[in-house]
Each structure stands twice: as C-alpha cells, then as structure tokens.
C-alpha cells in the first residue's frame, strides 16, 4: 500500500519527467537531433541508436511510447532493433529523409528473421539499383517504340 510519502515521490518523478520532455521538445526533440546526426553521417551512431531504442522502450513501458517528435510522415517511432522488419526501417528512413541504405546498415541489416524472403532486399542498394535500372529500361523502350513507329509510318508512306 502506498503511503502519502510514496505518492509525493511519484508526483515529483512524474513532474521531473514532464519537465525533461518539455525541454527536449523545445530543442526539436532528441529524435530530430538523432536524425540530423544520421543524415550528417556523424559517428558513433550505433551507441546513440541503442540509447534511443532503450528510451523508447522505457517510455512504452510507462505508457508514453512516443516522446520524440519532429519527423514528418506516419512512422514517427523507431526501436532501432534488428527485430524490426526491413519494411519498417525502409519506410521510416524514407519519411525521416535520411539515407535508406545507411539507416538499414546502422540498425543491424535489412531486416530480422521474421521478414518474408521477398522483403529482405527491400530498401537496400540492390533494390534501389534494380528500380533505377527498370526505369531506365522503360524510358529506352518508350523511345524505341516512338522511333520505330516513325520508321513504319515513313515506310508505309513510301510504299503508298
């Protein structure tokens, strides 16, 4: 059973946490700062990522899962663990406007074991290269079709 003294201590802790969160928010959020560091390529990042992951887990346990604001897009949380899927990492990195491949590398690979095989290369350099190559091939084929149509029209006109 909690005593009046215990309740007072709890209130103090709660107030201190609220004040720290407010201060953090004024600075743009620890999360925003971290994202900037990721984008700027500062080291060592792994330690910081782990620290933020721990912080997030702590807040989740407390029922205040997300305290880090400042990131556009629907994914504004990030446990930075290998257990998150490549999909989540990729989506998060994209919305946070950071280098996708770097984010994936820093957070322990393209995905955890729970990822479906088709998802494993998602967001990696190979995946992005494949998409870029496909876009180039499409463009080349479209140009080829236009040129061939012109040639057919020319030959048909000549044949009468």
């Amino acid at each position, binding site marked *: 059973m909690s005593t009046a003294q215990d309740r007072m201590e709890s209130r103090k802790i709660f107030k201190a946490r609220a004040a720290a969160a407010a201060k953090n928010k004024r600075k743009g959020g620890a999360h925003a700062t971290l994202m900037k560091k990721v984008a700027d390529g500062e080291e060592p990042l792994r330690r910081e990522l782990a620290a933020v992951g721990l912080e997030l887990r702590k807040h*989740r346990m407390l*029922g*205040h*899962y*997300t305290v880090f604001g400042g990131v556009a897009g*629907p*994914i504004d*949380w990030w446990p930075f663990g290998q257990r998150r*899927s490549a*999909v*989540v990492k*990729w*989506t*998060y990195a994209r919305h946070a406007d950071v280098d996708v491949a770097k984010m994936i590398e820093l957070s322990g690979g393209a995905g955890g074991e729970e990822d479906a095989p*088709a*998802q494993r290369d*998602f967001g990696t350099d190979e995946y992005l290269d494949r*998409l870029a190559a*496909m*876009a180039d*091939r*499409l463009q080349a*084929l*479209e140009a*080829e*079709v236009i040129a*061939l*149509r012109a*040639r*057919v029209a020319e*030959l*048909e006109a*000549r*044949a009468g």
Partner: protein
Amino acid sequence: MKPNDLATKEQIAETVWRRERAQEAAKEDRLQALEARVAALEARVAALEANE
C-alpha cells in the same frame, strides 16, 4: 500514444511496402508490353523494307 498505435504503424509500413511492390509489378508488366511492342514494330519495319 495508445498501445495499439504500434500495430497501426506496422500496418502502415506494410501498406506502403505493398503499394511499392504493386507499382514495381506494374512497371514490370509495362516493360514486357513495351518489349513485345518493339518486337512487333521491328518485324513490321523489316517486312516493309523487304517490300521496297
């Protein structure tokens, strides 16, 4: 944030991924269609040139 939001965001990520995959599949289909079109046009050009 509500506890269920974590699941919601996983679902959003999954949806984004599925949409991207669908777009990729559509591009693959378009690529195949264009390749077929190019082959048909090349055959037509060859036929017209042979008749000249």
